[in-house]
C-alpha cells in the first residue's frame, strides 16, 4: 500500500470538508491504526481508533449469528450522539474507515467523505 498517497488523500479530504473532525483508516484484523488525521487535541489517534475497533468487533459478534437474516456483512454503522456523528465503514475484510463530524447536519458530507476515503484506500492498494 502506498501510504504517502493515502496520507495525501486523507489530508485533501479533510481540507475539502471543514465539518469533519477526524478521518482514520485502520486494520481490522490487527486492530492497528494505519493512518489518520484528527482535530481532537485531547484524545490520541490510537485511542480513537482502538475505541472504534472494539465497537466493530462487538458489532460483528452480534451480527455473526444473524448473518443469514440481516445480510452477509455490515457495510456501515452511523452513530449520532448529542455532540458528534460517527460513520464507521467496513472497506474490506481487512480495512475499515472512520469519520467523525460535529452535529447531524453534515451526515451526508460525512458519508461522502468516508466513501471517498474508501476509494482512496482501494487506489492506494493498487
Amino acid at each position, binding site marked *: 500500500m502506498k501510504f504517502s498517497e493515502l496520507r495525501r488523500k486523507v489530508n485533501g479530504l479533510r481540507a475539502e470538508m471543514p465539518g469533519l473532525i477526524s478521518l482514520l483508516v485502520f486494520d481490522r484484523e490487527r486492530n492497528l491504526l494505519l493512518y489518520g488525521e484528527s482535530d481532537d487535541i485531547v484524545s490520541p489517534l490510537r485511542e*480513537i481508533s482502538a475505541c*472504534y475497533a472494539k465497537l466493530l468487533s462487538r458489532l460483528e459478534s452480534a451480527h455473526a449469528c*444473524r448473518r443469514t437474516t440481516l*445480510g452477509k456483512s455490515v*457495510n456501515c454503522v452511523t*452513530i*449520532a*450522539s448529542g455532540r458528534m456523528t460517527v460513520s464507521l465503514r467496513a472497506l474490506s475484510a481487512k480495512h475499515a474507515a472512520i469519520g467523525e463530524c460535529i452535529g447531524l447536519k453534515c451526515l451526508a458530507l460525512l458519508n461522502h467523505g468516508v466513501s471517498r476515503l474508501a476509494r482512496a484506500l482501494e487506489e492506494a492498494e493498487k
Partner: protein
Amino acid sequence: MKAETEKALIVPAMGYPARDAIYASLAEMASESPRCVMVCLYEDESGYPVFHITDGTILNPAAFSCFMSSVHRAAEETMGERLARPSGVSQIRFVMVETERFTMFSRRIANRSSLLLVLRSPVECLGMPIELLDRYEPRLRELIAEPGTAHSDLTHI
C-alpha cells in the same frame, strides 16, 4: 447469552393499555416510508420486539431487534469512551446499521424501549428516516409512558 435471549423471547409482553394506538402509529410510520420492511418497538435489555409491523417479508423480527439492541448498547459504551463520559450519558440520537440487504435505524424512546425502523437497502436519502423517527418519537413516547392519556387518537388498523 443465547439462552438469555431465548428466555426473553418467551416472556409475554407487558400490558400496554394503548396497544391499538401504538400499532396504529407504527402502521402510519411504515406507510410513510416506501422502503420500510419493518417497524417495531423493542425492549432495550432483551431486544424483545414488543410491537412490530412488517411487510410480510420479515419472518423473524427478533433477529433485527436483538441485533440492534446489542449494537445500540455497544454504541453507547463506545461514545461514552470516546467522549470520556460515563456510559449512557452520551445522548445518542440514533444508530444506523447498513448491510447489503437492509438499513436499520434505532432510537431509545421511553420506559427502557427503543424504536426500530428497518428499510430495504440502499436508502436513497438518509435524512428521511431520521425525520420520521424525530416526528413519531414524541407520540410513541407518550403512548408508552402515559398510555391512559393517548386513547383519543386511537385508530384501528
